[in-house]
């Protein structure tokens, strides 16, 4: 007979599925102001030859910025998640100097991690192949520039996902050191650029981003430069009261360019998870002396390691700069003290979202 030894599985009782389907009606923002768009074009293209650059624009919406970019002669790939906008974009292709390709896809939901089968319409590999984008080595220059506005509800989640993609060289980072130009909220912006000088903001994310990328603040844009789009076309006060407030926040444009030297030493897509774990562990008890963390993280003699990186055993995680963490990791990885260097074990749950 078929039966189940265990009592009823609870999971079946829960109808709710992950975040993807639930947030259909979440409002999105687009650049609405022409002047802002012109400024952005300047920021994005800098002084390089526009026709040699691929700009990947996430959710262009009405296409104000797209138009400006094309006018400047750039090659633009628009990733639009909302079907209704696509007809608005297509006419832009005709009367401009640049080149435009439109893809119906949500950039931020591309390449979901830890799924056995990835549907082709959310697989970067399939999409990029269609677009004819080729990978370049990590040591080469920036192959693609991405511009987007982080959906405010999932900022953290997306920033984490990108970090995993970056350190593991997956998704867009298979194609080289892709440069991100993202509008983020003030809160996340402050956290991204925090250092030990701001202990209230300095967290795991700051370390991991700053180790991986050159994080540069470009400029602040007032909320009035953006338009808001919702599924039913207008914002209802009662329902979106909270979101209205959030939408009235100014946004900060940050550029994140992966470092050429990120993988030149011992850190690599093979062991980055250990590095993540090290940093998370240290910030778990951020005011505990670093030596205590090392004792439960590594089997290598901690005193010796600290001497090599010129840190005091009594120093706390909160006082170490991002590059200190990298140095710490590299030093342990290099040490020939012991066959087993880390207590940590690979564990897939460590990285779920």
């Amino acid at each position, binding site marked *: 007979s078929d039966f189940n030894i265990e009592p*009823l599985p*609870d999971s079946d009782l829960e109808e709710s599925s992950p975040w993807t389907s639930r947030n259909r009606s979440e409002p999105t923002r687009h650049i609405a102001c022409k002047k802002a768009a012109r400024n952005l074009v300047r920021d994005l293209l800098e002084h390089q030859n526009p026709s040699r650059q691929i700009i990947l624009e996430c959710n262009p919406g009405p296409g104000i910025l797209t138009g400006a970019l094309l006018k400047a002669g750039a090659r633009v790939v628009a990733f639009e998640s909302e079907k209704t906008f696509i007809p608005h974009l297509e006419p832009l292709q005709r009367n401009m100097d640049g080149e435009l390709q439109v893809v119906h896809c949500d950039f931020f939901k591309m390449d979901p991690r830890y799924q056995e089968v990835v549907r082709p319409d959310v697989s970067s590999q399939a999409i990029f192949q269609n677009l004819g984008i080729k990978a370049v080595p990590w040591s080469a220059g920036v192959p693609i520039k991405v511009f987007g506005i982080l959906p405010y509800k999932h900022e953290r989640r997306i920033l984490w996902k990108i970090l995993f993609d970056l350190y593991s060289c997956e998704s867009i980072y298979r194609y080289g050191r892709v440069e991100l130009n993202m509008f983020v909220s003030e809160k996340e912006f402050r956290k991204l650029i925090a250092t030990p000088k701001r202990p209230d903001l300095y967290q795991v994310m700051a370390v991991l981003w700053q180790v991986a990328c050159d994080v540069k603040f470009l400029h602040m844009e007032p909320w009035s430069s953006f338009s808001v789009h919702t599924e039913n076309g207008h914002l209802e006060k009662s329902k979106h009261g909270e979101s209205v407030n959030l939408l009235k926040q100014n946004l900060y444009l940050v550029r994140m360019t992966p470092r050429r030297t990120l993988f030149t030493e011992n850190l*690599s897509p093979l062991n980055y998870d250990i590095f993540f774990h090290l940093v998370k562990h240290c910030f778990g008890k951020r005011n505990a002396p670093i030596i205590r963390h090392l004792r439960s993280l590594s*089997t290598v003699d901690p005193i010796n390691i600290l001497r090599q990186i010129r840190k005091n055993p009594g120093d706390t995680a909160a006082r170490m700069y991002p590059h200190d963490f990298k140095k710490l990791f590299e030093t342990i990885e290099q040490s020939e003290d012991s066959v087993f260097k880390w*207590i940590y074990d690979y564990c897939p749950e460590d990285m779920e979202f």
Partner: protein
Amino acid sequence: SAASPREQHVLREWGHAELLEVLEARVRQLRAEGTPEMRVKKVQVDRPPQGHSSRWAQKLEAEKRVKQRRQKEVDQQKQALTQEFWTLHKEPKIWNKKLAGYLQPSKKGTPTNSEEKQLAQALQAALGRLSSREAEALARKKAKAVEAQILVLQQKFLAFFECCVCTGQVPLAHHVLVTHHNNGDRQQVLTLHMYNTVMLGWARKGSFRELVYVFLMLKDAGLSPDLCSYAAALQCMGRRDQDVRTIQRCLKQMMEEGFQPQLLFTDLVLEEEDRAALLRAVVKAEPAFRPPPQAPSPVNTSTLLKDIYSKEGPVSYPKLHLPLDTLQDLFYQQLHVELSSSVCVQSVEKAPVMSKEVIEARKTLQALREQWEVELLRVLRETKATMGRQAYEGQPTLYPFLCLLSEGEFVSILMQVLKVLPAQGEPLIQLAHNLGLRVLNRHLVKQKQVTNHVQKLGQRYSQYLQLLASDTQVAPCLPREYWESLGPLEAPAQQPWSVPVLLQLGKQLAELLVQAVQMPRSLAARQGAQRSIPVLYHVYSFRSYRQVGILKPHPAFTHLLETAAEPTLTFETTEVPMLCPPLPWTSLHSGAYLLSSTKLMRATEGTTQHQRLLEQCPPAQLHGPLDALTQLGNCAWRVNGHLLDLVLQIFRDKGCMPLGVPPPRSEAPRPARYQLPPGSTPVHKSELRKELARCLKVAREMHSLRSEALYRLSLAQHLRHRVFWLPHNMDFRGRTYPCPPHFNHLGSDLARALLEFAEGRPLGPRGLDWLKIHLINLTGLKKGDSLRMRLAFADEVMEEILDSADNPLTGRKWWMEADEPWQTLACCMEVAHAVRSPDPAAYISHLPVHQDGSCNGLQHYAALGRDSVGAASVNLTPSDLPQDVYREVATQVEEFRQQDAKEGLRVAQVLEGFISRKVVKQTVMTVVYGVTRYGGRLQIEKRLRELSDFPQEFVWEASHYLVRQVFKSLQEMFTSTRAIQHWLTESANLISHAGWPVEWVTPLGIPIIQPYHRESKVQVKGGLQSITLTSSVDESQKPNTLKQKNGFPPNFIHSLDSSHMMLTALHCYRKGLIFVSVHDCFWTHAADIPTMNEVCREQFVRLHSQPILEDLAKFLKKRFCSVSSIKSLKSSERALVTKLQETLQSLPKTGTFDLGQVIRSTYFFS
């Protein structure tokens, strides 16, 4: 406290041997620390510095001074320790002025003879009624809801007091009680139960003075004494031979509070000695008093069980096949096992080649273990001393817990846990819980030894065996009835500790492990002056945003264990089947294992509601389930040795996944390479990493399957050539399960095939036919055919059957293609033996033959709703061929699909030719048990992915479409099922919204409550890390409505199928059959199949002839809509109750199905 000199003297006697030991150990330790210094000093004194080497002299002098000072410190410390230990509080501070007055004179040093009188007076005062003002205060106190964190503290206190009393440290308990009582704020924590516990401790010692103190404190705290409080006071008086008047006054007061003296003997669980003392006291005061006679065990009056408990009619309960002295001997073997607390079993894993490396590793491990045992002992003693000191400062530390077992036992528990710690580590919460439970279980067993229970059990059990043995003559009766007729045998009442207490203890023990267990930095190098490093590491792991503490062994240690490949496995006694018949279930406290406590109703740790409901049940109400569980446990088993040999052969070779024999680690997939050449790009590394991760994942899954099989097969090998028993208990819906987890008949095909009945029965005239039919059923080949056709098919393939039996691994391997290959093989062998024996009818068969309910959940729904169409599709109506509900659903879905395809629906067109029985089967089966569309879609998605020619890009859409169609078809076919499900869900929804968890009583009388609540969180602080305990079974939380309402229909149906199974079991037993079950699959000997089939149908009809839904509605109405239950509700909740009342009145309509037809339905169970 200002104690008089006389008091001081008394105090000194308070010290307990255990404590003295600790103290001495600490002093020894301090001395040891001090010794070298003292020796050095002595040398210096012997040879005073000479000459004028003044610098040297100065230096030495300075050193000497330092050492002297240190020595002095050591001495002081020693002294301080000694003093600290000796001052224990005894006299409480009484806050209530009136009560305090009675204690005053003693302070002035009244002579001893009047002290008695004064105490009696004090007690008298304490007994007095509370004034109305005090009563009000008390009521206020009670009404205040206790916060979760306070509750944890209270549990800790109570367990502390109980452990103190267990280990004979009543003075310490008293001291801590007084310390907290004296502090007005902290007094809030103390509960009546705590005062009672300490009082009982004093009562057992006959210490009247201290008892009176506690009684006073209890009153002073504004609590009102209950029956236990009076029992303790009277017991104490009984032991001391107190004067008549005091006892009389006490009794009088007790009766005024509404407790009749008889209650002392009926409502309390007392140990024999306590009971005698109590009786002495009562009789002294009232010479005419006799304890109420043991009431004759009340008889169960349920109509369904009338036949079982009637004294008339033929009864032929089966006896065991073993003679009395064999059984007697088996009992002692099992007793020995349970007393020694764990079982060592030889591993069946292929032994490693004894290379130099292996020998070396084993030697190293041995040496390390010896070292660790010494070190653990030292750390344990140190911790005990520290905690002892803190306890004497008035804190409820873990000290008495650490005294429950001998130090050696603690060390051996810790060593065992260390041995089984997985390489990837174990979450601290799990490890701590495990450790706490081990200590608790061992403590409970030990308690039974201390109270002489073991001896009494031995006597009682040998009397009991008279009923079961093959060579004795006893009038047939049920095991429980017989056991009860032998008189009461009360095991000491044992309360398990709460989960936070378990965790606290476990965490402390885990910390000892981390501290004590070390190894040299390099294991390869010879031990010498190397620095030691810890073996265990406390690391955090990060699961999305949560942080989980883990204890992880050093990889070098894991490597050492792997190299050593030690050949033994250790099991807890309750993980191994029993070697003698289990104790019959006589109440929810006693049954199954001889000494280890087993729950009658299994539940997640921390669930108390089931226990509470069962306790409130009148004892006779539970007779049905108790007797059914006893009987399931009484079935004697043996291992099918021939089959085990074959399995082991494959297991030790390369395993075989299709046959359910997991391969060894050497067969795990390996990445093409582990390292990349220098200069590889990050993208290459990324790809290698993916590959490594995939291999690791597979390897880990394989490892866990392999370990599970290793446990199972090693236990089977251990039990080969033996007879053994699988004690049973049930879940909260009444479904029954064998208690031993690794090796039982509920497992996979392989596990089932390894087991057979220890007792054989001749096949008789039709037995061989049933064996053959069973064989074909196991192959899954002829599901749609009649029994006659299956039998004919068996004869047709007899060649194959015999070949399989004779050359299982070398022949044509026909059995390997079967649905249940190993059971098929076992059956092939049985058939071969039978057909080759001179007289097949006389062939003694041990093989269990199964009869399966066809979609049992739907059978119950169809019967409940008298739904003719549904009933026919699940074989409740007689028919020439078995009906297949899965195929019917598939057909119906296909009709819908064709329609949609015609209308141009793309997904319906794509699905053409892919809708089969297999695609829908799992979903149909689980819909009855509450699977939702979400879960159903996942199931179908899995099936579609397995179809290689199905266009995979349509999987999501197609599964979404199909699950809708399956639900739709089921609704059309089982109209009443849907109505009943809806009615149940709606009722549960209303009950839950009004704030209650759903409750009901099964037709056999089991009280059921759904343990689904909103999550509660409790922090267990201190030590290595804080542990946050989340519980979804906490009754003080509001019910989780989603789970309550979705869970009700399936749980209700499960409570019916378990009732049906138990009824069948009991009636089969009365007819002398051996019967066991796997829920809706019933097993017996081939010869007895016709009888079992008859009983099974009869009981199904009888069960459903009861007004089941009406009874349920009546019960729910009484429980949730009565005046008393809605009294405390808000008006919004009352509206819900009104609505509930309406819902309960409109029962779902029933159809016209004639239930009696089931009797003649061949394929109802087949």
